């Protein structure tokens, strides 16, 4: 019953997020700040993880090909497919649920605890629009991060393959060009946009509606990470069934 209630409150929150918009000159500043906090500040960790995970996928694929009948270009092919279809959109989103999601929950939760949200409401400001809407807009640039993750993942695979002695540059390049289906990129970006929406709204929900003090801010961040991850995994399953099934 509590879960159903929370789902209802979550959808009402989304509706209220678009109501009574904040003055554009103020909103513009908030959006730019959130782009810096949520997108720009995530580039480093995403680039690092993508590059090295791409490398590991290439090495693992190469080490598991013992049959001489399997072509060597399979390393590049498997790396590309893994990175574009799943690693970049889904697993980077899980990592972002930890990094960006916890940040959103704890920053909004702290504002709740210190009565800053009440201060906004007393002034007649729609606090949901003021706090959540700029995050939603900032995270619409999330596909930009995922594009970088895709590129660096494939590049990491190439570096590991060639410099680790697991294959040649020509085989790898041939692999990443083999049976390329452009719709896979579209599919990945559709998933990314859905995940971006979830990343902006679920952590905001847990921060905005939290009750208690500093300890509860920490608990809300953990709960937010768990539920954002669960919903991303479920959404991933249903989107894959719908778009590729």
């Amino acid at each position: 019953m509590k879960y159903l209630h929370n789902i209802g409150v979550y959808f009402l929150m989304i509706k209220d997020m678009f109501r009574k918009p904040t003055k554009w000159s103020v909103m513009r500043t908030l959006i730019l700040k959130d782009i810096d906090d949520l997108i720009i500040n995530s580039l480093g960790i995403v680039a690092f993880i993508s590059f090295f995970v791409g490398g590991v996928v290439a090495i693992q694929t190469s080490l598991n090909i013992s049959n001489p009948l399997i072509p060597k270009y399979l390393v590049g092919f498997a790396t590309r497919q893994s990175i574009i279809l799943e690693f970049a959109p889904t697993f980077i989103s899980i990592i972002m649920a930890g990094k960006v999601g916890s940040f959103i929950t704890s920053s909004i939760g702290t504002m709740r605890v210190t009565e800053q949200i009440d201060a906004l409401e007393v002034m007649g400001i729609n606090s949901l629009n003021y706090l959540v809407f700029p995050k939603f807009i900032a995270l619409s640039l999330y596909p930009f991060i995922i594009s970088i993750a895709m590129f660096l993942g494939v590049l990491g695979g190439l570096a590991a393959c060639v410099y680790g002695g697991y294959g040649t540059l020509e085989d790898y390049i041939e692999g990443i060009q083999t049976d390329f289906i452009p719709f896979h990129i579209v599919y990945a970006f559709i998933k990314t946009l859905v995940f971006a929406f979830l990343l902006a709204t679920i952590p905001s929900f847990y921060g905005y509606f939290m009750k208690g003090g500093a300890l509860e801010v920490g608990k809300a961040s953990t709960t937010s990470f768990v539920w954002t991850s669960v919903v991303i995994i479920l959404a991933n399953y249903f989107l894959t069934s719908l778009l590729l099934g």
Partner: protein
Amino acid sequence: MIEVKNLYKSFGDAHILKGISTVFEKGKTNLIIGQSGSGKTVFLKCLLGLFEYEKGAISYEGHVMSELTANEKRDLRAQIGMVFQGSALFDSMTIAENVMFPLRMFTKQSKSEMEDRVDFVLKRVNLPDAHKKMPSEASGGMQKRVAIARAIVNNPKYLFCDEPNSGLDPKTAIVIDNLIQEITDEYQMTTVINSHDMNSVMEIGEKIVFLKDGYKEWEGSKDTIFKTDNEAVTNFVYSSNLFKKVRRMYIEENQ
């Protein structure tokens, strides 16, 4: 003027406010006092429209709050300044940006006009050089003064303060009390203060409403509170030996 008629508020089975009626007059510092759990904060939040009430009416200058349209409510809220217990300053903004915030949100003033107004109110609360500090760099007393500056920057008609002296030393608390009273007189605002600081009651309580278990137990002023024979009020207000002695002396002097 704010008029409250027969106000009821519950959370589930817990009945917090039980038929409160009172009037908060313009140009006066009105204090709501009572023990912890007596319903002071809930009452204040009902007055501010942060909590919806089940029964009764709150009217601002004759306009009943629950009958206002969304736009009218927005206009009303723009006329309200609020000082929160923990100051509620925005962490990510400097002190000047905090004070400027209501102007940026609700006025069409130019940047220089807004800066002039911020300079004026920061000087008014005796913080002429604090513009560039972050709230975390300010002391508790400074934060309260910034909160007052933010509350009055847009010339509100109504000023609400929730425990403005909590966490402050007695000297700073008196400075804050006097500042609130001066501002109330100067701008002829309707000021409502939620407090359990007895020094504030004696200093600035032009009207005092005493709540007990969700009921209005007593109302009067800093002068009549000395003479009252209401046991609940005397037990609460004169709970310390010092205040008991002060009261005895006052009564003896005036006999």
